[in-house]
């Protein structure tokens, strides 16, 4: 099998995030591999390990795991992390004209890169911890015309039959869905426990190839990406006003009722 994983470098979840000119200021904060993408990497590794004669990913497994990312050169840090977990190689699309791209442009670029790779499966996290839209897997599936198997809490791959079955986990309950390759998957965070990179993995990752692609290499036109091509426009982004004083409820034997009234008023109940 050829598996691709879409990964993104994001600002550290714990860092204070600021907006600059309608977009997230990415330069001023620590950048890490999107937490939720680690589950995608782990799941790909487990799929390969389960179907490898050596019970390991990498050379000799007969399968490959390629990371695909779009971002600045700095995103190689996040890529190395995923490589150290066990992915084989990576493609990074870097181009100044991509700055400010919306989800539609991002999904277009990723789809064009995926098309070139003859992959059986594309696996994504459910969302990035910065934009939190969770639309990229669905957009990629739509653009490629591949089966959409998203929000998977369980994945079962049958490489001999070229089929994959998932259990989709959503607010409306669980659904079992299945499809033939090629398919686009997204995995929820309860699907597995991502491994920590081993020392051997970290050393090996330094030698694994990262292919750099420009926008022109992907075949996408510069007029289709970047802030100017975005199909939505941020009018303003304002920091939260300082918190006002809270409400004190005095318990005069009816504290519970007062609390419930407060929660209902704030639409929290």
């Amino acid at each position, binding site marked *: 099998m050829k598996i691709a994983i879409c990964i993104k470098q994001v600002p550290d979840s714990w860092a204070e995030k600021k907006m600059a000119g309608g977009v997230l200021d990415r330069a001023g904060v620590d950048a890490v591999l999107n937490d939720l993408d680690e589950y995608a990497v782990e799941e790909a590794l487990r799929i390969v390990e389960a179907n490898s004669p050596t019970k390991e990913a990498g050379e000799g497994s007969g399968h490959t795991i390629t990371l695909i990312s779009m971002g600045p050169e700095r995103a190689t840090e996040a890529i190395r992390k995923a490589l150290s977990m066990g992915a084989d190689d990576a493609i990074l699309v870097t181009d100044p004209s991509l700055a400010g791209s919306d989800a539609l442009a991002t999904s277009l670029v990723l789809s064009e890169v995926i098309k070139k790779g003859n992959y059986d499966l594309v696996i994504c996290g459910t969302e990035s911890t910065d934009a939190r839209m969770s*639309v990229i897997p669905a957009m990629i599936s739509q653009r490629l015309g591949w089966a959409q198997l998203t929000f998977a809490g369980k994945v079962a791959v049958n490489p001999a039959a070229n089929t994959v079955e998932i259990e989709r986990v959503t607010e409306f309950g669980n659904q079992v869905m299945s499809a033939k390759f090629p398919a686009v998957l997204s995995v929820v965070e309860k699907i597995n426990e991502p491994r920590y990179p081993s020392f051997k993995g970290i050393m090996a990752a330094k030698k694994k190839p990262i292919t750099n692609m420009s926008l022109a290499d992907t075949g996408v036109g510069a007029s289709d990406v970047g802030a100017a091509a975005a199909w939505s426009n941020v009018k303003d982004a304002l920091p939260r006003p300082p918190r006002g004083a809270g409400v004190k409820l005095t318990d005069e034997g009816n504290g519970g009722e007062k609390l419930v009234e407060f929660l209902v008023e704030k639409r929290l109940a």
Partner: protein
Amino acid sequence: MSEVLFLADHSAGKITKAAGELATYAKSIGDSVAVVFADNAQPIVDQLNAFPVDKVITIAGEFDKYGPAAIADGLAQLLTDRKPAAVLITSTANGKEIAARASVITGSGIITDAVNVDKDLITTQSVFGGSTTVHATVTKGVPIITLRANSIEATGATSSAAVETFAATISEAAKLAPITSSTPVVKGGS
């Protein structure tokens, strides 16, 4: 007045609480038009009439079998046909995927997880754990906006919405991953 469509979610024959909220948003912008994907839509229509709804468009077909990909197909065809002022969808896993695919199909901009949308279709989003408030608009195609549940109090009404049917087809690509079994969510309490 221009039409504002909203996708009326329903599960096991009952509309969700968020459906009434979307009706309320839609009515504050223009004519409130509910879109219902169901083979037996009348019970859904009856429930929607408890909210400000001017019209209901029902779409029948194998949408339960093929899930969000199929619903996105149907919605996209409806958007192309009616060219509404906007379409509102609840910010759920399903809703955001339907929005995402419909956005690609129709070439329309998308805004997700809004906590408000005003009469000029300016959305409010609360991002980075609530530390930043963003106001934004869609600039291309039919604005596709997903709204978080519980961001508005639904207005009650006694509507008698006109019901129309719309015929939509499901593409081969949207049929690639059929749902083979379903388990409804088990909720504790209440």
